[in-house]
């Protein structure tokens, strides 16, 4: 019987089968940030087990609240920083060199095809875009990962979503994943991995694939997985050039992490995206999805462009394309948050930061802050945010606040209009102007 990607990774990483349904896997990397890791560190210290299984396989970043906003968050940073120093964890990224973990760690080349990786953060599912098994876990799994380099999982069940057709103008990976979640529901992929396949995914670059995989947890999924190919080899090239004669050889090697043709799936969905229009959310669950045109005119107070879902270069470029030469609505507060220091610098070089500030956006340092109402951009009671992030839960960006999820282009267009609107309006006028 053929195997799925996850089954191949499980079989190559298994170190113990303590029960019928349980696989204990050896981990290629354990990723850490300052919110969920300090408690694991303090637990290990209290138990007299302040050790790490392999400092070269542990990567850490301060990203959720940076710079620290108060004594508590300063302490969380301090615990992580001192721990990294104490255990000679050299891949530690502090302010000035940091970024949103799920964007930073792939950018550093830490996620490779066939890897098994955990992090104490649900959006670790993003990293499956590289053909890896990358579940988010809690603090106890993280503590055991740090100490022993292993983690336990139930048998991997996989569903396959094949994306066919052509993405229409103004429709992005974000619109695709939101509509997928709208179709299968917030529990539609629970205890499952989602393999994304088909010509649409093959054409997507790594940034778009990461957006796709990032929100699999919003359908309950363990992680998303895209098949590692030439696009993956190209993205990783600076980190893997010593291991392969050329990119084609790397891509060919990655094929061992593709599923077998006769792999068995729990469910298979074929989805033609050709007719898809830009979408947004309307309620407080990520599966409350409808076309932007049905939400047209919904007033907004704030626009947030950033996060592990949409804080990468292409996201900033597509927002800037809509914003160039325009001003955001005077009633709207605009926040752009490039996801990593490298992306910030690149955006500066390409003139995007200037486009944002000219339009009236505030550009912040890289941080997760606004997405979960932790540090910057918290909403007041009754306020509404058009956001490129991943969760519209009750109180997510501040108690009593409302969040509508959408693509960066739609968020930029909405910032100009002062209400939720379709980016096509602005893109059409831009094309006319360019002519």
């Amino acid at each position, binding site marked *: 019987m053929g195997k799925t990607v996850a089954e191949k990774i499980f079989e190559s990483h298994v*170190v*113990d089968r*303590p*029960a*019928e*349904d*349980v696989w*204990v896997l050896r981990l290629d990397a354990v990723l850490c940030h300052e*919110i*969920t890791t*300090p*408690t694991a560190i*303090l*637990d290990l210290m209290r*138990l007299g*087990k302040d050790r790490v299984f392999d400092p070269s396989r542990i990567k850490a970043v301060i990203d*959720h*609240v940076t710079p620290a906003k*108060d004594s*508590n*968050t300063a*302490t*969380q940073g301090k*615990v992580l920083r001192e721990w990294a120093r104490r255990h000679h964890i050299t891949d530690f990224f502090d302010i000035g060199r940091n970024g949103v973990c799920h964007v930073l760690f792939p950018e550093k080349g830490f996620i490779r095809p066939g890897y098994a990786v955990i992090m*104490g*953060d*649900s959006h*670790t599912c993003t990293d499956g875009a590289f053909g890896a098994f990358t*579940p*988010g*876990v*809690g*603090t*106890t*799994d993280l*503590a*055991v990962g740090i*100490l*022993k380099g*292993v983690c*336990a999982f139930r048998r991997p069940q996989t569903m396959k979503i094949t994306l066919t057709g052509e993405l229409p103008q103004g429709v992005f990976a974000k619109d695709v994943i939101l509509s997928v979640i709208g179709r299968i529901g*917030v*529990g539609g992929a*629970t*205890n499952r991995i989602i393999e994304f396949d088909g010509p649409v995914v093959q054409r997507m670059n790594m940034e778009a694939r990461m957006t796709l995989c990032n929100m699999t*947890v919003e359908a*309950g999924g*363990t992680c998303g997985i895209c098949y590692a190919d030439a696009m993956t080899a190209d993205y990783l090239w600076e980190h893997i050039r010593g291991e392969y004669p050329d990119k084609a050889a790397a891509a060919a090697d990655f094929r061992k992490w593709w599923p077998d043709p006769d792999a068995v799936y729990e469910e298979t969905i074929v989805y033609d995206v050709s007719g898809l229009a830009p979408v947004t959310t309307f309620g*407080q*669950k990520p599966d409350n999805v409808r076309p932007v045109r049905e939400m047209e005119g919904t007033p907004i107070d704030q626009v947030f462009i950033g996060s592990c879902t949409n804080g990468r270069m292409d996201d900033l470029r597509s927002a800037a394309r809509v914003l160039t030469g325009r001003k955001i609505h005077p009633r709207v507060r605009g926040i752009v948050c490039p996801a990593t220091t490298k992306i910030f610098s690149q955006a500066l070089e390409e003139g995007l930061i200037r486009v944002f500030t000219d339009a009236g956006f505030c550009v912040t340092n890289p941080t997760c802050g606004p997405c*979960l*109402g*932790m540090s910057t951009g918290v909403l007041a009671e009754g306020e509404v945010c058009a956001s490129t992030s991943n*969760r519209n*839960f*009750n*109180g*997510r960006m501040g*108690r009593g606040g409302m969040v509508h999820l959408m693509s960066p282009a739609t968020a930029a267009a909405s910032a100009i209009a002062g209400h939720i609107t379709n980016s096509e309006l602005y893109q059409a006028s831009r094309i006319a102007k360019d002519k």
Partner: protein
Amino acid sequence: MKNFGGRVLFLDRADINTDEIIPAKYLTEIAREALKPYLLESLNLAGFDPKRDIPGKQVVISRANFGCGSSREHAPWALEVNGIRLVIAESFARIFRQNMFNCGLLVVELPRDTIARLFTDDARGEMFATADVARGVIQIRAGAKAEEIPFALSDFDRQLVEAGGWLEYADARY
């Protein structure tokens, strides 16, 4: 092994997420005990008042997909520091479910019809539920009514509950 039982807090909604169980702004607390006053603060459920409804409860019964969203183990911790060590629901999100067992806490999945009946039986708001882990049954007491409902628990999950959590189990084994 911990004790799993007591008076039931009914949360009548599906898809209750971990942001509702404990909002992100409290994740800046390193000590678990500090989470106590904020449990279910952001729960979107008509008529629910955490200050009034949580004290004195040791068990939660809810609908499908309980604990979806973030991986924060602060959700099980916030429950535990309030004395709630058992959650019974139709189904659970993967990470929340694992976090509960990893902490030596118990989640029990029961069929939709059974859950629906428990909601009805609780009409007077005085239901007690206790898990007997060794026998694999939930003992229910509501007024004069009493019953036993069997539940499935895998060997591995049982070992985690008995060991007091995954850290204890893994440290002894790997």
